[in-house]
């Protein structure tokens, strides 16, 4: 849907995560699960089967005790801004995952997905999860489900949407209030939840936004930049060993 048919808008939502502020608590991941109706199973220890949109990875400096150091890397979808296509949207045979060129968000239409999992293979960040089972909530936990996000079914892929439904909600409000919907901004559930305020979300093209400012920080970096995926999620760390890991397969 994105072969230049839609002109790129003036909005590019992105995220900056300060790894030096992050304590690895996991609040972002849990807030994301609650916000996006992510299903869970009794055993979540097989991480290849476990569905998370915001995963917390551990990075370490390869040192030996006591000079061993580690840090945490919260990993949402990078919403790659590579020209034309993100790696995942490029391979999707059924247009179930596309990028909205008006704001750069890559989303999924679940019923459209045929479960081929090409996108999972294509994603260098392991940001996509597959529903190997029907999502089931133990009685009465279905009552916790949010109507703002549709539930998935067995056999489809899902991933972080940058809480796209929140964008729809603020746009809706902008229409109602008569303000410019294209100027409406919002934050994601993970950024809201972060108790250390390590996650900043905003329009990377708006020079006034905190996210745009931080993304240009001298210590800011992107993961696997060399692949030219142009991730819209930036990380910040003053530690060299963390920044050096950015080019490796950390995710």
């Amino acid at each position, binding site marked *: 849907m994105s072969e230049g048919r839609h002109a790129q808008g003036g909005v590019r939502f992105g995220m900056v995560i300060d790894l030096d502020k992050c304590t690895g608590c996991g609040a972002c991941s849990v807030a994301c699960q609650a916000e996006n109706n992510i299903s869970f199973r009794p055993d979540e220890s097989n991480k290849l089967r476990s569905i998370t949109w915001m995963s917390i990875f551990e990075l370490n400096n390869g040192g030996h005790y006591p000079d061993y150091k580690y840090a945490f890397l919260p990993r949402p979808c990078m919403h790659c801004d590579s020209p034309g296509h993100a790696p995942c949207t490029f391979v999707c045979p059924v247009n179930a995952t596309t990028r909205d060129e*008006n704001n750069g968000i890559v989303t999924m239409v679940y019923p459209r997905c045929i479960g081929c999992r090409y996108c999972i293979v294509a994603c260098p960040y392991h940001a996509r999860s597959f529903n190997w089972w029907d999502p089931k909530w133990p009685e009465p936990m279905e009552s916790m489900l949010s109507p703002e996000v549709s539930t998935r079914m067995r056999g489809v892929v899902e991933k972080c949407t940058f809480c796209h*439904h929140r964008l729809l*909600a603020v*746009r809706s409000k902008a*229409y109602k209030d008569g303000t410019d919907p294209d100027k409406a901004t919002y934050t994601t559930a993970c950024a809201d939840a972060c108790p250390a305020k390590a996650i900043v979300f905003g329009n990377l093209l708006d020079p006034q936004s905190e996210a745009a400012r931080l993304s240009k920080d001298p210590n800011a970096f992107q993961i696997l930049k060399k692949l030219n995926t142009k991730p819209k999620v930036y990380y910040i760390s003053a530690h060299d060993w963390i920044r050096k890991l950015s080019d490796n397969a950390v995710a």
Partner: protein
Amino acid sequence: MRQKKSKALASKPLGAVFSLSGFIVALVVGWIVFPNLLYSKKAQPLNFSHAAHRSEECESCHSLRADGTYSGIPGISRCRECHESAQGNSREEASLISDYVEKNREVVWKVYGRQPDNVYFSHAPHKGRGLECTRCHRDVSKEEKLPAYRQNLITGYSLSTMKMVECEKCHASKGASNNCEICHK
């Protein structure tokens, strides 16, 4: 051989009749019988006469909330504002009072325009942009009796559930975005 041929010729007009009757029967089946079979008719739990509420503004019951979401069908608390006690002596009115208002139960209306879970539709961008409500909804201004809710037996959707192609056509003609993300959640 000749005889056979003449027989065949003779049956030609007859054949046309057969074909035509088959065609007509199929048309009847396809246009009338099938749609009736495909959609079950379900009555609403209670009748609501839009005509009887004509003195009210549409917005007093169906409006955009402050956060931009659409209120849809009002809840029983809104009904109670006027119908604390019976406003007439019809059977429906009595049912409204005794089954819902007094028990503080919500009326489980069947929503004609209900979209599937993975569809996001906001009234805010559509309302007041040269689009009348009747562009998508039936005209209820003079409606005395709620029509039956017709549910597709295969999909489970309402007959009035908007089809994606209709959304897309209109979006395309108005220059609105047709990105998947605009309407899917």
